[in-house]
């Protein structure tokens, strides 16, 4: 605040500030402004709402649950057993073209990635490629910082340890022959996560950096061997790993698994036909009444399908219009005489 010492014989300064006479603007929300304003806002919102709803409706979504709770479902045998790499497959038929680009999500429900202790259980320094954190992981990773033989776990912590490890392949059956649908795993994680926030230690080969450490207990392969097909997709910058590490906000969530590679037959998306998803079923969810699903979806400018926004805009837009009508009536009845 401007504190001005009043000098000259105690006389207070005669400035606009000290006399509380700063020029002020007083917003006057008169009916003449508000009613048209409300109508305009309302109409704009209704317009946006309609656009959103139309867009959202145009987005195609295909959800397939493969938890295997009920006995008839394809993966029920896998869900009951503890066998690693249990295989099961899911068939579905598309009657129309699934407009591309098509995104392949996996979804989990009743899975609390937002649990506090879970969320804190990682070591950002480690994930930033800091080798000193390799040998002594942060205590926040406990109980996943050291294995039973006191060797440090890299990457440590609950999040990494519980990384989703079901894998999927998509095949399309066209007149008896099965074609693999190429799934693109690039660019499914945030650009900044991939390029800046997570880093592998600058050791080549990457494997050497992990000397003296062990892989997370639940992992089948160490971090530097996550993707055998692409060497740059290993370690902490593995896209699947990054996607998993970005914790979901709510207990029912979906995460991006792959994109359908828009090439060849699939340039416009997934053509109509019969498809099979071969699942390597590893991830147990029944212990906590969870569910797993596969979601195919295309996206629009507003992202994935979401009816809420469109409806909200429509409702509030019409609310504005209704209110302006009410106000008009109120003003017409009572206020116009003194409006002048």
């Amino acid at each position, binding site marked *: 605040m401007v504190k001005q010492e009043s000098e000259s014989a105690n006389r207070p300064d005669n400035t606009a500030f000290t006399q509380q006479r700063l020029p002020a603007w*007083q917003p006057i929300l008169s009916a003449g402004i508000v009613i048209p304003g409300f109508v305009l806002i309302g109409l704009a*919102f209704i317009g946006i709402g309609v656009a959103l709803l139309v867009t959202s409706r145009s987005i195609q979504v295909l959800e397939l649950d493969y938890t295997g709770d009920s006995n008839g479902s394809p993966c029920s045998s896998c869900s009951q057993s503890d066998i690693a790499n249990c295989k099961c497959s899911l068939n579905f038929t598309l009657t129309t073209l699934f407009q591309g680009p098509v995104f392949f999500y996996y979804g989990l429900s009743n899975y609390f990635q937002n649990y506090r202790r879970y969320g804190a259980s990682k070591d950002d320094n480690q994930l930033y490629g800091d080798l000193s954190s390799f040998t002594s992981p942060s205590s926040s990773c406990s109980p996943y910082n050291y294995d039973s033989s006191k060797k440090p776990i890299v990457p440590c912590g*609950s999040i990494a*340890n519980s990384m989703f490890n079901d894998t999927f392949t998509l095949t399309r059956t066209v007149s008896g022959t099965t074609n693999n649908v190429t799934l693109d795993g690039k*660019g499914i994680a945030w650009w900044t996560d991939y390029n*800046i926030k997570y880093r592998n230690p600058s050791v080549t080969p990457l494997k050497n950096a992990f000397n003296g450490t062990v892989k997370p207990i639940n992992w089948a392969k160490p971090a530097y061997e996550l993707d055998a097909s692409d060497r740059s997709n290993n370690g902490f910058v593995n896209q699947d790993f990054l996607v998993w590490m970005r914790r979901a906000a709510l207990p029912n969530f*979906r995460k991006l698994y792959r994109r359908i590679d828009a090439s060849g037959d699939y340039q416009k998306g997934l053509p109509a036909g019969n498809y099979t998803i071969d699942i390597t079923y590893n991830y147990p969810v029944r212990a*906590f009444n969870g569910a797993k699903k596969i979601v195919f979806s295309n*996206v629009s400018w507003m*992202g994935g399908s979401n009816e809420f926004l469109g409806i909200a805009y429509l409702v509030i837009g019409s609310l504005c219009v209704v209110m302006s009508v009410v106000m008009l009536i109120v003003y017409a009845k009572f206020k116009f005489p003194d409006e002048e």
Partner: protein
Amino acid sequence: YTVWNFLPKNLFEQFRRIANFYFLIIFLVQVIVDTPTSPVTSGLPLFFVITVTAIKQGYEDWLRHKADNEVNKYRVTVLEDGRRIQKESEKIKVGDVLEVEEDETFPCDLILLQSSRDDGTCFVTTASLDGESNHKTHYTVPDTERDVESLNATIECEQPQPDLYKSLGPENLLLKGATLKNTQSICGVAVYTGMETKMALNYQGKSQKRSVVEKSINAFLLVYLCILVSKALVCTTLKYVWQSKPGQDEPWYNEKTLKEKETNLYLNMFTDFLSFMVLFNFIIPVSMYVTVEMQKFLGSFFISWDKDFFDSEIEEGALVNTSDLNEELGQVEYVFTDKTGTLTQNNMEFIECCIDGHQYKYRDASSEVDGFCVTDGPMNTVQQKAGRVSVVVSRHLCMLLTREREELFLRALCLCHTVQVDGLMVDGQVVPPLQEQRGFIASSPDEIALVQGAMRYGFTFLGLESKTMKILNRTNDVEMYELLHVLNFDPVRRRMSVIVRSISGETLLFCKGADSSIFPRVKQEEVEKIRMHVERNATDHAFPNHYDMKFVIMILFYLLFYSLQEEAAETMEALQGAGIKVWVLTGDKMETAKSTCYACRLFKRNTELLELTVRTLESPGKRREDRLHDLLLEYHKKTDLFLQICQNCTSVLCCRMAPLQKAQVRTNSKGSPITLSIGDGANDVSMILEAHVGIGIKGKEGRQAVRNSDYAIPKLKHLKKLLLGHGHLYYVRIAHLVQYFFYKNLCFILPQFLYQFFCGCSQQPLYDAAYLTMYNICFTSMPILAYSLFEQHISIEMLLENATLYRQIGKNAMLRWGPFLYWTLLGVFHGLVFFFGVWFLFSNPALQDNGQAFGNWSYGTIVFTILVFTVTLKLALDTRHWTWINHFVIWGSLAFYVFFSFFWGGVIWPFLRQQRLYFVFANMLSSVSAWLVIIVLILLSLLPEILYVVLRKPRGPYARQVVL
């Protein structure tokens, strides 16, 4: 404090405040227990609050130190071994001989040894002790006058005692704080110093006054504390309920640590409870106290800066002694006012006199009294306006005479007094008639008025010189009278007499006094005659004197006019219009006080007066006093009926009050209504201290009242602006500030609470730690502070014009449970909208057009963005006085939030363990859906507000404000 122990002592004092202590506990819990948020989140705001408060208190302390030093390091002259030595006043020891010059203040209690005046007297004024500005004469100790240098003496004195009135008497004790007047220098020996002086013993610490607003805050705080605890309890319960379901306590992906497994279940529950408390503790606004303090501190500058309060006469503006009570000025229900010097000026004016039934009226347009001008013309109009009387005081004087009546009367006026002529030459030189400029000093203003009145008729009092009074008469001759004896005015006799001998050898006795004392000495028929005349002249009684010599009795009386304070009537009218009940407490008698009230328009012509006096009671057989007593007792039994009657009157006049009674009246009616006392003299101090708000007038009766008041203003007329303008605004501002603070923290924390239902009650914070910390310090604190300093929901002019507006905020209207509930519900509504709006959006977290999904920090950031914008815009909607500062602060805060979010998310911070927000904000902005949801939810939240603002506008006096 000293420089060294300031920090620990100040910290200790601060943590004694319950709120600070609470936050300290939260902080300690965060340090000790594994809590969801780091200690920084609550430690930083706490540190901030403590620092700001410490700086403020340190500054005030430094000021106090400076004032202390000024007194303690004051140079005094000490006579030691025959030499003059300059010493600092704190080093004076008992027994030192001090020399004090004219107009200096005594540094300690002194025994007068030697005076520069021939007669061994000195004059002092004790204005700063008891408020009496007249000069008191003190005498040297007999036998010591001559040779102080060779004096060798022992002084026996009693133990220091505080009774001021009893011992102002001893004629050679000069008290600390009194000022030497009219005497060039004196020598005295110090008898009491430091804390043993009468002044120090009389000093009483000001009791802490707490405003209603603070009480409201504490009540609200309690409510929020309950909400907080119940929230934490609910969450803890839910957590354990949820965990008891199969597979939820410890799913395979989230195993507990060894430590957690080992600790006892109940201990775990307790720490969980604490964790929740920590998580939700932001619901109790950390920074509210500091903002409130800052608002009060800075806001009070506006009072002292106000040039309308500046009085050119005394070259001073308003003074704010405490900034804690600004808003209380907007809550006043009762005003207790002193009459003399407050309602009326302390100047009196000689209006007319009546000699033996013959009336003399002074008709000079420019009757100047101490620079204050009242002409007969306006007075008459006042008279007509006020109805019967405008003459407020009448003193009556009668005298005996043998010669020409009029001249004698005037001579009497000149002689019968204790007035001293100021700054004059006692050396016998003929003084050129200075006429009006002449300064007189007297113990009461009516004496001055009399002498000046006489002067206008041609009789000028030249002064008293060695028992001889000199008068310059109409023919410019100097008449000498030998002063034989003076019987001073005292409250018991209520009259004073002078016996003089004229040169011709006649011995004259002049006597003047109050009616009651002189009345019995008068012949009855004379009284009737005079009374008739007096009645016609709108005065009360007259009283001739009877002198048992062989002289003819002549009846004289004079009228004096207490001029009202400037704009007293307007002020009182405004106060009444504002629904404030005015109680006039005065020591004067009823008629006088009543006429003042009429003149001030406190009583109007059609006002129904209920009089309860001894005279109005009819009681056959019994003494009236007893009857009155019985009546009061009876009233008292009937559940304070008397008090109730009084409290329902618009104005009450209490006459014949002693200072202590003034305070007691105030105490009796303390209860809940807010009272304000205003007065100017030392006799009002008790009243001022006792009231919720004490206001001192920088009047003529010394500084005592000013020093003990909470606010001091130069004139009564300033009270109007102080209450109706400043008080009203401050109340509205601070009430809004408080409500807004609770509201914004409720809707800040509610989403966090709701989030617990969706994260297994795991104390997962919804917002990032930086946001938790900065929300109250940076993002939302400045706009409300600016609002609470600059808001004028109604312009000051409007407030002053329409006194009734003051009633709207009476009785703490904006901080009662109704408005509080409204704000709380609004907060709940907003919290629900924020959380569930985004929750619906996140039913599909793939919100980016490249198919990527958002995580939990994105969720929190979206909610937080909506929160910050809504809360700030809500304030913007409430702001009706947009200065550039408001614009700057409101839009600046929003811009700062956006900028900070980018910055915070744009860098990998080496000191953070987790880079949670890395590029979260930027990614959020890249999503169209996020934008859309932010816009729609902000609008939805504000829709009721906008509606309210629109519909509220054209109502009542606000409607006129549209023209701006």
